[in-house]
C-alpha cells in the first residue's frame, strides 16, 4: 500500500456494472518529502494515477491505496481494477531517524 493526495475525480458515462455506486479519484502518490509534511503543491514528483474508491474520499484527502492483483480482490466477480482505496487517513505520524 502507498499513500497519496487526492487531487481530483474522474467521472464516467459508460462503465462496467461492477463500478456502480463508487467513484474514481485522481491521486498523486506521496514521495518521501510528503510523508515528512511537505505541502500538496507543487505536486510530488512521479505520475498521478486513478484509483477506485467506495469509501467517499474527496479532493484534499490523504488515502492509502493498494495496487496490483490485490486491488481487485474485494469484488465479487472478476473486475478490472488495479488501484483500490483501502483507507482514508486521519492522522499520520512520521518520524524517520535524523542521521
Amino acid at each position, binding site marked *: *500500500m*502507498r*499513500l497519496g493526495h487526492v487531487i481530483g475525480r474522474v467521472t464516467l458515462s459508460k462503465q462496467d456494472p461492477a463500478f456502480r455506486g463508487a467513484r474514481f479519484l485522481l491521486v498523486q*502518490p*506521496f*514521495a*518521501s518529502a510528503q*510523508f515528512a509534511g511537505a505541502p500538496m503543491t507543487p505536486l510530488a514528483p512521479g505520475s498521478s494515477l486513478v484509483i477506485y474508491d467506495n*469509501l*467517499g*474520499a474527496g479532493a484534499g484527502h490523504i488515502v*492509502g491505496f*493498494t*495496487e*496490483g*492483483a*490485490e*486491488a481487485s*480482490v*474485494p*469484488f465479487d466477480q472478476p473486475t478490472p481494477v488495479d488501484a*483500490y482505496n*483501502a*483507507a*482514508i*487517513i*486521519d*492522522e*499520520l*505520524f*512520521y*518520524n*524517520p*531517524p535524523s542521521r
Partner: protein
Amino acid sequence: MILARVDGVIVSTVCHPSMTGCRTIICQPVDESGRAEGAPVLALDPLSAGQHQRVLISTDGSAPRAYVRDPKSPLRNMILAIVDEPEKETA
C-alpha cells in the same frame, strides 16, 4: 519480501472493514546497509514493531488475507518478522 525500517504509524477511521483494529505502520524500504530506498509504504503490523526497528515485509496479499480472516481484503503488505541484526558478508 523486502527489508524495511519502521518510520511511523497511521490512523484511519474510514477504511476497508478488514483493516479495522489492525495496526498499520509506515515502513521505509532499506538496502543491505540500512540506506533508504524509494518512498515509504504502508504495512499491516501484527507483531507491534517499534520505531526505527528493521522488519521483513511480505508484499504478497495472501499473508494479510489469512491474518485478518477476510478472503476479500485488499491488503498487501504485512510485517512477517523483526530483524535482530542483518548479517552481511564482508569481501
